[in-house]
């Protein structure tokens, strides 16, 4: 049986603003399983990146984790010392960012940057680390790595840069790899190549991948499990095939209905009415009540908790059994 290598539990992130404290991530929980891809799916602004930043410890100074835990190989990252975190950053946990150009330092050759993880964690000589860098470049599919190792980031195309970033992230064989919209900035063909590379590397190195995206098609193709987020909350989790074929939360259902492939030709494309609530005015009951077609009094009064609705599936809705009808 597959085991969770990283468990996020009740993760809550608050942002200090001049107008008071905002809760950007509220009680988020999910498990990352070795060799599997978990998709964190949600609209822009729902707190996906904030969750990832909280996990890797890169939150803005204005934001902080106010409760919850992120347990990775027995260590809680939220309470771990800086020293411990530094030791785990790279060999245990790594992240691929969306914007590959700004994630690489413009004044160093890519070889120097790819060698850095080896130099820090394995205390390799610069020559040995450079050899590892060339090997990594070859592995992620960069042509002529021996001659390209001394080139600077701006001399690579966007797709190649994203490959370099992935190379840097997987350099030390992390247990968990987070990927925050790794292909959003790329065109479709390159996107497919990058996702294929990520999948190959995941299988080869038996990593748990957490894929953050707002792209339903990507989730359908790439992920094994999905956690749907809305306004800082996880509203539904489960295996992708099950969730997409039989959603148990009105928001998931709405999302799926807004995708063209699910609609017969000629019929109207449904879209979810309204917009996600502003962080400053999240209602006290269900977070989705303002846009939910099933909403009623109980939804205003009481916030639904994420509860099991079927084997391996959970949803945060009082009336989830009505959704599939």
């Amino acid at each position, binding site marked *: 049986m597959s085991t969770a290598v990283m468990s996020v539990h009740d993760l809550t992130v608050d942002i200090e603003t001049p107008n008071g404290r905002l809760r950007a991530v509220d009680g988020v929980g999910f498990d990352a399983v070795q060799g599997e891809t978990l998709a964190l799916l949600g609209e822009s602004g729902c707190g996906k990146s904030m969750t990832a930043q909280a996990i890797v*410890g890169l939150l803005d100074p204005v934001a902080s984790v106010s409760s919850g835990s992120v347990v990775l190989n027995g260590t809680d990252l939220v309470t771990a010392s800086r020293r411990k975190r530094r030791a785990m950053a790279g060999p245990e946990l*790594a992240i691929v*960012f969306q914007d590959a150009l700004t994630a*690489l330092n413009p004044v160093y050759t890519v070889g120097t940057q790819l060698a850095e993880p080896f130099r820090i964690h394995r205390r390799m000589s610069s020559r040995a680390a450079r050899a590892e860098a060339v090997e990594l470049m070859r592995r992620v599919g960069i042509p002529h790595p021996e*001659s390209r190792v*001394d080139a600077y980031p701006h001399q690579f*195309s966007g*797709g190649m840069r994203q490959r370099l970033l992935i190379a840097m*992230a997987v350099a030390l064989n992390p247990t968990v790899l987070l990927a925050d919209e790794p292909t959003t900035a790329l065109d479709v063909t390159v996107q497919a190549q990058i996702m294929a590379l990520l999948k190959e590397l995941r299988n080869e190195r038996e990593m748990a991948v957490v894929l953050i995206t707002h792209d339903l098609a990507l989730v359908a193709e790439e992920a094994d499990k999905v956690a749907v987020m809305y306004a800082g909350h996880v509203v539904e989790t489960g295996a992708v095939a099950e969730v997409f074929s039989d959603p148990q939360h009105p928001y998931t259902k709405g999302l799926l209905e807004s995708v063209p492939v699910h609609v017969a030709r000629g019929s109207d494309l449904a879209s979810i009415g309204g917009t996600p609530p502003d962080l400053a005015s999240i209602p006290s009951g269900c977070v989705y009540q303002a846009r939910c077609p099933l909403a009623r009094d109980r939804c205003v009064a009481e916030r639904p908790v994420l509860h099991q609705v079927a084997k391996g599936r959970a949803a945060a809705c009082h009336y989830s059994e009505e959704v599939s009808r």
Partner: protein
Amino acid sequence: MTAVLEAPSESRVSSQVALWRLLLRDWVATGAALVLAFVALVAAFGPMFVGDEAAQQNLLDANAEPFRLSDGWLNVLGTDALGRSVLARLIVASRTTLSVAVPAVLLSLVIGSLIGMWAGYHRGRRETVVMRIADIILSFPSLLMAVVVLYIFSPSSANLILVLAITRIPIYLRTARAESAELQSRLFVDAARTFGTRSSAIIFRHVLPIVLPTLLTVATLDFCFVMLSESSLSFLGIGIQPPSVSWGLMVAQGRTYLQTAWWLSFFPGLAIVVTTVSATILASWARLATDPAQRWRLTLPRGRRGRRAIRRAAEKALTPEVQ
């Protein structure tokens, strides 16, 4: 496919040799480097040859006009009120000037930059405290502070350097802090953190190389300011003590004779300006040369380094990259 603006054929100009070659292609920067090298050589070895002549008084030949070779090449730049050779004094003064200005600039550059980068990187209370201290130093008129300090302590060379350095530290501190605060929020710094790089290593590896060109440019401009501050202090009698002489002191001493003997102030002033301008030119060249994305511009001939040349290079580079 994604096309990328690739630098034409300049993928590996990282070695020292290539930098030299790059410098030689730019005749303005080469000239500036030669001037600086010449000044440094004169300061190092010149006083050995003309040390005595610089002190030699000859009241019969006082305030002699420049550009007359009749009384020997030493007086080609004229003589001062005591009949001493201006050229010889310039040479002797170059050593004093550089031995005060260079250490003062370097000291303030190193201290200011290190503290500034540290404060900017960590933000928060460390930043606030450091910036308030910088404000206090800056709000104190630097000349007044120098006067007070040098009046209390003896006006030795070392004290002069120290005072000049302290008054100039905030300049670097502010620049370094501002840039570092901006850089620490960049994604590549985050990326370095995600594989466990220590803060100190991030500051030296990711912040310093990017801030350094700016700091060097500030330092070369400040070089001029420090030389002039030194001259003011020397003029007030608390800087360089006669019979020692610096360029600044020569300008200051010559000021009284401006109507009758312009050359007394003009030549040391010219020396200050030429040295500073050369340093500035070299710094702005270095700024381009150390930026991998800009470096290729330097490979274009200077005259054509205008829009046309760049456009043509861009066109050449825009042929789709073979992936």
